[in-house]
């Protein structure tokens, strides 16, 4: 038996048991539309790559991290100072978390502006929005884990805001904190959310989201004439290009980690006064600043409650975008959806900067 025959027989053996050739066939037939906006497709891949980085570095951090009030801070300091390349792993984990959320936001807005959420991709949109929400939860829960002064007080502020939610607020705050205030119970459950609950949900949802992308293919923006539209094979042509982008992102991550290692701060002291200018991570800053701007009461309604109601209403409109935007008389609604997207980008950009500056 020649080597080629042996190889073929081995592959047949595996195919009979795993059906791997089906995957190969899928990849062979998958194509990517080529047009002026093709670059936006990369952001889905970048987000996926960064999730992989988070998973890899997170598992390594777990080797040394200890989720108790007494040991959390010291264990992170140990990682940063004593573990070989621990500083690199932790800094990459932190920077990657931020880039991941940025990339997910860009991916979401690119979908909105190219109207890629339309039928039959409603579920792709919904699962994507849910994933973005999960990434924000990852950020919020992971922020507390080093148990430093800033993260402790930022979590206090964050859970306070959650506590103002109508009806369920106090119960939600207690659920998050594991008690009346941020403490040992909060750290343990945030750790649980961060490394077990959220990853379990996310993996399922990522699989679902990617499977839907595979099923429906990549969306082509409407209005591009067929003559100007060509296609590229996903594998290997587009995949190799995506790989180049991933390498680029890796270089950016390495640069950020080496030149601006993620700082550790001071160990949380619940009895100390809150550090001046306490604020949440940048991706919550626009909302936080908006709530700060609101007066304590608007007529008889609490300002913060009104703000939360506004954000809630906006989120519902945003999530249901694929369902209201494509109704008859759609031209006007399309313009409305695009306008809403532009408004949100502008609002998030300006208010995040104001939140930092003010």
């Amino acid at each position: 038996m020649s080597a080629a025959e042996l190889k073929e027989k081995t592959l047949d053996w595996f195919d009979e048991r795993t059906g791997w050739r089906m995957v190969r066939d899928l990849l062979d037939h998958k194509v990517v539309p080529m047009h002026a906006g093709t670059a936006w497709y990369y952001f889905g891949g970048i987000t996926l790559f960064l999730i992989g980085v988070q998973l890899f570095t997170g598992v390594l951090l777990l080797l040394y991290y200890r989720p108790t009030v007494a040991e959390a801070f010291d264990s992170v300091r140990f990682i940063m100072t004593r573990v070989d390349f621990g500083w690199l792993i932790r800094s990459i984990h932190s920077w990657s978390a931020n880039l991941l959320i940025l990339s997910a936001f860009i991916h979401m807005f690119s979908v909105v502006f190219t109207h890629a959420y339309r039928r039959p991709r409603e579920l792709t949109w919904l699962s994507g929005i849910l994933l973005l929400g999960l990434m924000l939860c990852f950020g919020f829960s992971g922020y507390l884990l080093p148990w430093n002064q800033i993260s402790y007080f930022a979590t206090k502020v964050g859970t306070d805001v959650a506590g103002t939610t109508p009806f369920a607020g106090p119960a939600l705050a207690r659920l998050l904190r594991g008690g009346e205030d941020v403490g040992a119970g909060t750290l343990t459950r945030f750790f649980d959310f961060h490394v077990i609950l959220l990853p379990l949900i996310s993996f399922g949802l990522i699989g679902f989201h990617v499977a839907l992308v595979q099923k429906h293919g990549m969306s082509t923006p409407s209005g591009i004439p067929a003559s100007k539209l060509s296609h590229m094979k996903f594998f290997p042509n587009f995949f190799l290009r995506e790989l180049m982008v991933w390498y680029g992102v890796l270089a950016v991550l390495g640069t950020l980690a080496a030149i601006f290692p993620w700082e550790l701060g001071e160990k949380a002291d619940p009895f100390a006064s809150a550090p001046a200018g306490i604020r949440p991570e940048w991706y919550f800053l626009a909302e936080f600043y908006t709530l700060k701007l609101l007066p304590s009461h608007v007529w008889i309604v609490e300002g913060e409650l009104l703000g939360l109601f506004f954000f809630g209403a906006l989120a519902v409109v945003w999530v249901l975008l694929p369902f209201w935007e494509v109704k008859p008389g759609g031209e006007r609604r399309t313009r409305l959806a695009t306008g809403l997207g532009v408004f949100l980008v502008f609002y998030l950009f300006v208010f995040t900067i104001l939140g930092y500056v003010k």
Partner: protein
Amino acid sequence: MRAATTLFLLSFGLGAAAVPDSCISCHAALEEGKGPASTIKNDIHIVHGLSCADCHGGDRTSQDPEVSMSKAKGFKGRPARTDIPKFCATCHSNPDYMRKFAPRERVDQFELYQTSIHGKRLAAGDVKVATCIDCHSVHDIRAVKDSLSPVHPLHVADTCGHCHSDKERMAQYKIPTNQFAEYRTSVHWQAMTKRGDLSAPSCASCHGNHGAKPPQVESISEVCGTCHVLFEQLYSRSVHKAIFSSAGGGGGCVVCHSNHGIQSPDTKMLTGSASVCAGCHDAGTPPASTAAQMAAWLNGLDAALENSDAVLKTAEKSGMEVSEAQVRLIEGRENLVKSRLALHSMQPDQVRIPVDAGMAIARETLYVGQNALRERDFRRYGLGVSVILISLAILAIRLLIRRIET
């Protein structure tokens, strides 16, 4: 205004609430807002429910001056200056009475006052000396902890200085008037006003308040030792104690540190042109050389700690985690303080112990800082190499794409 009115009414007691205080009403009309009737509303006695009549006697319920200020009603009027301490002591030396208002308040002020220079002179008929009202004010007396009180820690020096900085007033006593000006240049004043440390000493902390008099030569170190306990203990065992405490010896701590204008101590006090040791020990003599040696040790430790601190700060600014070493450096600084403390024993061997411990910490933290900087450089070189490798990988993929697509 409402609170003041309530307070005012309360001062009469519930039963007398309907009866106006004739002292207040008449004096308010007579003084047109410029006398005691207008200032007394904030007085601690009124706040505690007392009235003018409780000190001055008389009948405040009568609107008739002949009755309200009659001797038959116990009216005492304005006490003579020489009688003021006894006048206040009527209540303030009565523990049973004082317990009703301030159970923890001392009741020995009058006894102490009688032992003070002020009290003795007043007893001898000198009415220019301070009595209770000169420090506490009158008809506007506030609790010591009230920041508007003239005897609040922040105002004590001003209050004493009011008389003691007055050259004309002090001329007859032949005592200097520069104490307040000197005190305002001192570390104690800095601590009080800049750091807001109300426990920092002012005049009364060293001289006493009601029993105010200058500390005697032999007790100066005891006075300073009230706060600077360890310094005093070491000094007491040093060769200087017996010499400074003797007649003409200068009086302990003040020989080197002065009294009212105490400056932040420095090793320049030990050697060089500003040396206080040089006042007694000629340059080149063994004591002067020992002082210079100890100054060199302290300066060396200070410089070594500063150097380590600078290196650690550079590392920290570069994003390196050096907080453990920075905490350790605080221990080094504590050794510098201990060295300065040990200096008061005038035993070089005693000084050497904390100096050596501090130097060891300075070396250790410097090593950590330098390692952190080397690590920073390693990271940056590593980054450079990684970026080159990643660029090569990207280039290789680009070439692969070109090969596939042609």
